[in-house]
């Protein structure tokens, strides 16, 4: 190769404009989010595999297990079970945003990109905000495709469009909150591989010990309070209500009776705690 001879390539160039506070944060976050969205569009297999798991769950749960799971007040049939199931699948799917954020940030750490970002005069939190915003877009896309698949196999909403959109908003809020957990994991582990498994492993007990896939009343008595008070169950219950997919009466447990409020508050709480921890960790990260 040859490097062209240069004139005036070194010092003394354009004076960068000054943005401050929120405007700077939003600008920098957008630049990073756009970068992550471009990456996603160029590694479509990540998006495709992110879709395959929930689609498979929809098909396996509704056709294989649907007939065996009895919904209180409705009996057991796969066409009824799919109504019950979808809120749970949607909610579980959005929590998988954890894995995207943790693997992505861990990769940026090991590839030296985080050091590059940290050496630039940009808002400290923007690398993480940009990442979680891109994950939010991916989550929204996944939900859309998943809803279409579910519709094809018989899932229907039984209330208005506004209620359904509210349910999707709750799901996106939950997914966004969880991607901050992923951010902290990604900053804490040393390799993208570790980040992927550390990001996913605890999600299985969290999402299965809940009302997502089976009625809590079918669980052993000691497990029922845990499932009801699992904040994840609140989002599932809230969506079930808003989609009009609730079959029979809502369980008596307090979080189930106040599902929308509990869902919003717990998502906001997770987001506040984990974004604070992540940004703190990012500032002091030693790459």
């Amino acid at each position, binding site marked *: 190769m040859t490097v*062209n001879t240069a004139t005036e*390539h070194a010092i003394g160039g354009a004076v960068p404009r000054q943005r401050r506070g929120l405007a700077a944060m939003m600008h920098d976050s957008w630049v990073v989010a756009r970068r992550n969205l471009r990456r996603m569009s160029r590694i479509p297999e990540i998006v495709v595999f992110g879709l395959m798991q929930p689609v498979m769950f929809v098909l396996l749960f509704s056709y294989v297990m649907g007939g065996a799971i009895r919904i209180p007040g409705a009996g057991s049939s796969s066409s009824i079970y799919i109504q019950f199931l979808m809120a749970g699948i949607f909610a579980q799917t959005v929590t998988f945003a954890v894995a995207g954020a943790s693997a992505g940030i861990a990769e940026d750490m090991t590839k030296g990109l985080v050091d590059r970002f940290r050496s630039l005069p940009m808002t400290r939190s923007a690398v993480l905000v940009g990442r979680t915003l891109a994950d939010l877009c991916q989550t929204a896309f996944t939900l859309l495709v998943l809803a279409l698949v579910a519709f094809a196999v018989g899932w229907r909403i039984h209330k208005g469009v506004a209620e359904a959109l509210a349910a999707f908003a709750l799901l996106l809020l939950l997914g966004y909150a969880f991607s901050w957990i992923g951010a902290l994991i990604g900053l804490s582990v040393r390799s993208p591989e570790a980040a992927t498994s550390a990001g996913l492993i605890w999600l299985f007990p969290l999402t299965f010990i809940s009302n997502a896939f089976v009625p809590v009343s079918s669980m052993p008595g000691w497990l029922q309070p845990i499932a009801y008070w699992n904040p994840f169950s609140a989002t599932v219950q809230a969506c079930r209500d808003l989609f009009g997919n609730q079959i029979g009466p809502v369980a008596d447990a307090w979080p189930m009776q106040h599902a929308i409020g509990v869902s919003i508050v717990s998502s906001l709480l997770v987001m506040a705690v984990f974004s604070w921890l992540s940004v703190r960790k990012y500032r002091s990260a030693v790459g």
Partner: protein
Amino acid sequence: MPPAIQAENLVKTFGDVRALDGVSLDVPEGTVLGLLGPNGAGKTTTVKVLTTLLRPDSGRATVAGVDVLKHPNQVRSLIGLSGQYAAVDEYLTGRENLQMVGELYQMSARDAKARALELLEWFSLTEAADRTAKTYSGGMRRRLDLAAALVVRPPVMFLDEPTTGLDPRNRLALWEVIETLVEQGTTLLLTTQYLEEADRLAHDIAVVDHGKVIARGTADQLKAQIGGERVAVVVHEAELIATAVEALKSYAVGEPSVEKNTRRITMPVSGGAKVLADVIRELDSRDIEIDDIGLRRPTLDDVFLSLTGHATLAENGESGEEA
């Protein structure tokens, strides 16, 4: 004028390891300081402190007159950093990588775009501009990484082992770029394991080992510090060694050393080329046939070896071209 980079007594410990054990250095504006040392000597840690990536336990530092610990964000807009692994996003194109960095330096989108074009041109990446960096060779990635450090034409640059793992051709090309930058007034702190690199690029060299600067000076000063030049003679036959040593003794300023199997005699001399000529005449007059003769000046390798008691790369090996 204050130095463009100044560090005083930097200390940084990681657990039991004192990565920096009181590093002080200064780089006058427009000059190049080569930080020379083996892996783990504290070179990268020094760069991380000076580029605001790492807070030292104690000590202070300024870059372009700005306090690194008090005003890190101001420092960040005055520096360019290029690391030993090419920190570019491999799923973005070359153009997108440079534009992103420009925008994060707070340039307007239009300026960032124009600057990206200029840099791609300068680094001969125009043809590859719209390919993802994943498809680039190691040398191209390293050029893109260096280009990213130049987006705002920073007055002070930090290059952390910029050519580690590059083949000689790409290394030479990067050296030329770095020399251009310095001609245009950039102050540069360069870390390297390659003595040749420090010798060629740096005005001043600081040798670092175990978190300390153990020697400081120009390449010539450091070489002079460990003694002067030597004459090395390879005689044609082993039987000639004894006679040759006898003949050479009066020209040596120390004890000649002999390597029997290579038939090489090395002796310290003073007087340079004139001594060499005298030695050749002397050997000729005694009909001692030689295969090779030369005047050897100490290299920075010799300097490093004598200062630290170990070679630069011997223990650690060399990191290869990364994937």
